[in-house]
């Protein structure tokens, strides 16, 4: 991670990611609506929503919550900047976990029963996806020989060819990270769920706007994780990556609209099972190919 790439990423990610993330949310809502035979809101609706939230009157249940949410946003941005600057993959994962923790603390600080329920669920979600995320970054290292995300640019072929199972595991837990049904336990956009936005129950106005923006940043970062599997030292990579991202995101929307929310225990069990199988088989095959 050179200073130049860091500065480019700092400005590039900080400015472009929310635009792309908001647009993605708009497309998401549009596609979802079409899947449900509705027309759906305008493409730019997420931006209108956030703008409206921003100008709402400020009501807060305590003066810590907003601070935690702001810090959560800051660390999500830092994680993204390091990732797109070609920095250390594990560092990205750890800083993003810090961001998530701060979001959980924001909910806890309110002592609201609904928010606390959401916070508990969020923690279980973290516990469900974290092993796969850690294993993804370690197997990335095993395949590439470096933790730096820019190391893929020197490869002769994309790492999906080394880590196909890890990629499938990542897709599975991304459903949790994108907050998509069936794993949208703590924070959902489906009005029919029993607890829709548990973790953000007490967040309103600007605080809620920041939560939305954080989510946009995160989504772009996650798409970066998907994309890195298809990048190698060739211009063809751009094409392949774009196709892969479109397919993956459509798949997530499709899953979101076709599965009913499950209980935490099912989420934990499935996520861990998929992680173990994918991780062990893929790592073992990597290792054997070294020996051979």
């Amino acid at each position, binding site marked *: *991670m050179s200073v130049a790439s860091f500065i480019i990423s700092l400005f590039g990610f900080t400015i472009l990611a929310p635009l792309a993330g908001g647009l993605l949310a708009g497309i998401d809502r549009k596609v979802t609506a079409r899947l449900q035979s509705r027309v759906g809101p305008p493409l730019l609706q997420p931006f209108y929503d956030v703008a409206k939230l921003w100008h709402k009157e*400020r*009501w*807060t*249940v*305590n*003066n*810590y919550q907003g601070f935690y949410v702001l*810090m959560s946003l800051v660390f999500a941005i*830092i994680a993204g900047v*390091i990732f797109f600057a070609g*920095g*250390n993959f*594990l*560092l990205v994962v*750890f*800083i993003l*976990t*810090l961001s998530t*923790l701060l979001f*959980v*603390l924001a*909910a*806890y*600080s*309110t*002592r*609201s*029963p*609904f*928010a*606390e*329920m959401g*916070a*508990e669920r969020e*923690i*279980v979600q*973290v*516990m469900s996806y*974290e*092993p*796969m995320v*850690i*294993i993804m970054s*370690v197997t990335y*290292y*095993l395949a590439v020989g470096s*933790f730096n995300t820019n190391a893929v640019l020197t490869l002769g072929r994309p790492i999906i060819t080394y880590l196909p199972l890890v990629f499938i595991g990542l897709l599975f837990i991304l459903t949790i990270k994108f907050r998509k049904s069936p794993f949208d336990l703590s924070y959902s956009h489906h009005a029919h769920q029993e607890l829709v936005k548990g973790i953000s*129950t*007490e967040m309103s106005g600007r605080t809620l706007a920041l939560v939305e923006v954080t989510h946009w940043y995160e989504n772009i970062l996650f798409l970066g994780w998907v994309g890195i599997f298809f990048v190698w030292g060739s211009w063809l990579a751009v094409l392949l990556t774009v196709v892969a991202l479109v397919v993956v995101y459509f798949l997530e929307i499709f899953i979101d609209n076709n599965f009913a929310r499950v209980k935490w*225990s099912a989420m*934990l069990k499935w996520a*861990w099972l998929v*992680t*173990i199988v994918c*991780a*062990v088989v893929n*790592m*073992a095959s990597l*290792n054997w190919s070294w020996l051979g």
Partner: protein
Amino acid sequence: MGSLTTLNLAFLIIFPVIAAGILLVIRNERVRGGFVVVMGALIILASITFGVRYIGGPGAYLSVDADWLSYLALAIDMICCLYVLLKGIQHKRVWAVVLALLQAVLVICFEVFLAHHVQITHEIYVDAFSAIMVLVIGVIGGGICIYANGYMVDFQKHEDEHNKPDRRPVFFSLMFVFLSAMFVIVLSNDMAWLLTGWEVTTVCSFALIGYTRTDEAIRNSFRQIYMNLAGGIAFSVALIILAAGVNGATPMLELDKLIASGGSVAVMLPVMLLCFAAFTKAAQMPFHTWLLGAMVAPTPTSALLHSSTMVKAGVFLLIKLAPCLGWGFNGVTVALVGGLTFLACSLLAISQSNAKRVLAYSTVANLGLIVACAGVGTAEAVWAAIFLLVFHAAAKSLLFLCVGTAEHHIGSRDIEDMDDLFDRLPRISRLMALGILCMFMAPFGMLISKWATLVSLADTGHLVLIVILAFGSAATFMFWAKWLGKVLAVSQSAHPVEKGVHRTEWFALGLMAVLALGLSITFPLVSQVSVVPYLESTFGWHLGSTISFDNLAIMAVIALFLFAIFIFQFIRPRKKPDIGIYMAGIGTDTEHREYRNSLSGVSQAGQRNWYLSKAFGEKTVTPPAYIVSIVLIAVGLGAAVLIGLGLIQTGGLL
């Protein structure tokens, strides 16, 4: 080695013992208070002087030409055995009597028939790692002794209500003896002396755990002594084998020579036995129950056992032996036992609501991680292990002291009762939050050490351990995050009850907080100055790319940033909330979370944390973990016996 060093060494080891002797006869509370503070401060200063001198140095060896010291060590061994023997008879515990007798016989056999035939060149050594250990023991241990002062005043008030005798003189003197024994362990090159220190810590913690003399305390203290005597016996057998020179090995009793032998087949069995002894001391599965039981003792004891002494003696020995481990039967056994312990205890901690029990499981889990690193045995893994040890000592003692003080002021150590601690104990709760963050979150030290562990596992191809670490870390997030959430929940109606926390307690809490945070911020520097030189001299290793200096620096900057921003946030004047919390439109008093129920009465809404006890309770997790750990240790020991004694030739397998 100048005379100054000898003086400093002698001071570290002898001075606490003298202090302990004097403490036995001081009955006045105020006099004792002053004395303990002065002695604690002196030990802290002495260890800092010592640590600073040697922390970056190449290491030095010292020979002590005094036979009487060896006789003294033997006498102390015998006193330890005798004490356990008498206690065993008093409480009718057959196994304690049997084990103590066996240990006594082994030590006498060793001293009489073998020890004198082995030439010992250097009895004492000092290197950067032992300097680090001296700092951990002296600064954190000394701080805990000072803390104990105020704590035990409150503790005794409670005891007086039940007409219990005041046994504090014994308590304080045991604490100081403990420190002295730990110094012996980390500075002895003569393994017979190391064993003496080892046995003294075992017996001291036996007496400290049984301090309150309740049935539970006595039961738990005997559980501790069974397990640790078994470890002590394994240690003695290892010494006998080493001194006898079985299977063509040169007889040796010096730690540096054993390490230099690099884990050759001839020393395989004694190394495994020493690892076994370390497992018992470091409370690895299946021996973890003694550490859980140890929390019946007053909190300063727990803090001391968990952070700077006792269990750290176990992992210290393993880290020293790391060059003998690595890819081989011994190394893999050690790595897997540690890994299994880390995973199982991290999962178990999720199901606990008793704060001290969560801390205990977390200690065992982190020790497991250190043990696993030692088992991996590369320089990178040892780097991680040393930092895990240091950061764990600082953060865990901070947490224990917070929980202890909180318990005296809110009357509970249950995490569910810490709901509005943020307002009831403003400063304690913030320190507790800092301690928790230091245990598991970026950018603090424990996490960076875990990161280094992960990298070294990937580099050595320990795939099973990578998976274990990934899952264990996820569980770690779960149990710390929900505790942290409770502690940081802002209440609108609670009143502070923080008055009456003793000044000695504030001092120790502040010291631990400064250590935990300061070390996280100065991490890159500490690594360059102290640990890297040690690794270079031990492994001939030049700092590779475990974690690059840039990334360490990024973490340090973030730690500083977080610290600054949180300080700013917490000194801002509190604003009254604009609005109450959402109660689905039926709230009557949102400050107390009360709502109108379906019978038109008033109910209070509550939200307990999730403990997931069906999935991660002791009944679910412990039995399989027991089976696996026992099988692992049995296989490891069996292999060591068969191969180490030359009964089986392995050829290229090793």
